[in-house]
């Protein structure tokens, strides 16, 4: 097995999905967490990141960037990507949905410079984009029937949805009562062997 060293901020954000994949697969990796406030000074020299970005994954010393690319690689290598090309396609479809939502949330949260505009945009995301997204997820789960998004076992799609919804689940738990399949899915993913242990020891972070 290759030696894996994963470098990201000490946050969940867009990097958490890779950590979840490693833990779900039961694959050892070095989980390097850098201080966000020291960015980018703390990624000079040894920690120099490809294209000046985080996260990156070192595979036997070679560095690769882009969280989604990395997550798809780990999923592919370690049985989290479905059983055939059409399942890969379905999984990537769900991942794409989560990215669309995450992008809107990130634009609202980190885009505007003034607090008022930020609050306006965030309110819009939470009142419009989030319910629409949750409804889509609910329908996908109902259609697939297994409690997972694709096939009948845990895949990258399940983990990506899980991490994408963490912030809103903490902030608006009541909203989730309208989406019982999504709620059940959260419990199901959270109780998977490698994931449960990781979540119980994971330090809480703001995002």
């Amino acid at each position, binding site marked *: 097995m290759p030696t894996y060293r994963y470098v990201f901020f000490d946050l969940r954000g867009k990097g958490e999905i890779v950590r979840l994949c490693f833990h779900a697969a039961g694959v050892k990796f070095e989980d390097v967490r850098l201080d966000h406030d020291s960015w980018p000074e703390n990624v000079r020299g040894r920690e120099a990141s*490809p*294209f*000046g970005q985080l996260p990156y994954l070192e*595979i036997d010393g070679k560095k*690769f*960037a*882009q*969280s*989604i*690319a*990395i997550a*798809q*690689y780990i999923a*592919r*290598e370690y049985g989290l990507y479905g059983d055939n*090309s*059409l399942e*890969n*396609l*379905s*999984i*990537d*479809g769900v*991942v*794409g*949905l989560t*990215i669309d939502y995450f*992008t809107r949330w990130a*634009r609202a949260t980190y*885009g505007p410079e003034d607090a008022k505009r930020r609050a306006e945009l965030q309110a819009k995301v939470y009142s419009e984009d989030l319910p629409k997204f949750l409804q*889509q997820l609910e329908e996908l789960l109902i259609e697939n029937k297994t409690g997972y998004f694709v096939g009948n076992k845990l895949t990258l799609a399940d983990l990506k949805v899980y991490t994408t919804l963490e912030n809103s689940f903490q902030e608006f738990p009541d909203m989730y009562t309208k989406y019982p399949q999504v709620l059940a899915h959260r419990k199901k993913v959270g109780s998977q062997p490698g994931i449960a242990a990781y979540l119980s020891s994971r330090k809480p972070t703001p995002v």
Partner: protein
Amino acid sequence: MLPTYKLVYFDGRGKAELSRLCFAAAGVKFEDERVTKEEWPALKPAMPFGQLPVLDVNGKLFGQSSAIEKYLAREFALYGKTSLEALEIDEIIGLGRDYTDLITVWYKESDETKKAELGTKLLQEYLPRFLKALDSKLTNNVRGYLVGNQMTLADLAIYDILENNFRKTPELLQTHPKVIEHRNRIASSQKISEYLKNRKETEF
């Protein structure tokens, strides 16, 4: 036996063109269905995620352009020879997505002053940064492709992403001869040049 393919999108390049380029590169036939603005509301409820593009594979519908592109790349040997090459290809796709996301933010900005600022940032900071990343990939690859030793999804993606820049701001790319050379290499490859020659001209 190959499945029957239909790609459904609006009448433009947009989010479907990379998929069309994959079909072209592979020489695989597909139905290129183009939906008008008037037709869309009636069709929307039947589409996965209520969005386009959609790929119809033997009657089964799949949404999300990035998922469709990867599927086609897998099926048509445009995804590199190894899992690590696939990762490198996805890395470039991701970098491309980061760049086009910034274009989308600029495009959607309604405040004229902010939009002008973002436009300047795009041209002076984001595009050069993106091109620099491409340069470094091309410099490290003697064959002149972005990943490995033959055309992959990464090459087609970059071709597609830079299309509007090449049309509207070609002078900005003059300082990146490797990117220009790469573009010419892809455009002049047999199947792609044939496709481009016959491609319907659209604004977006």
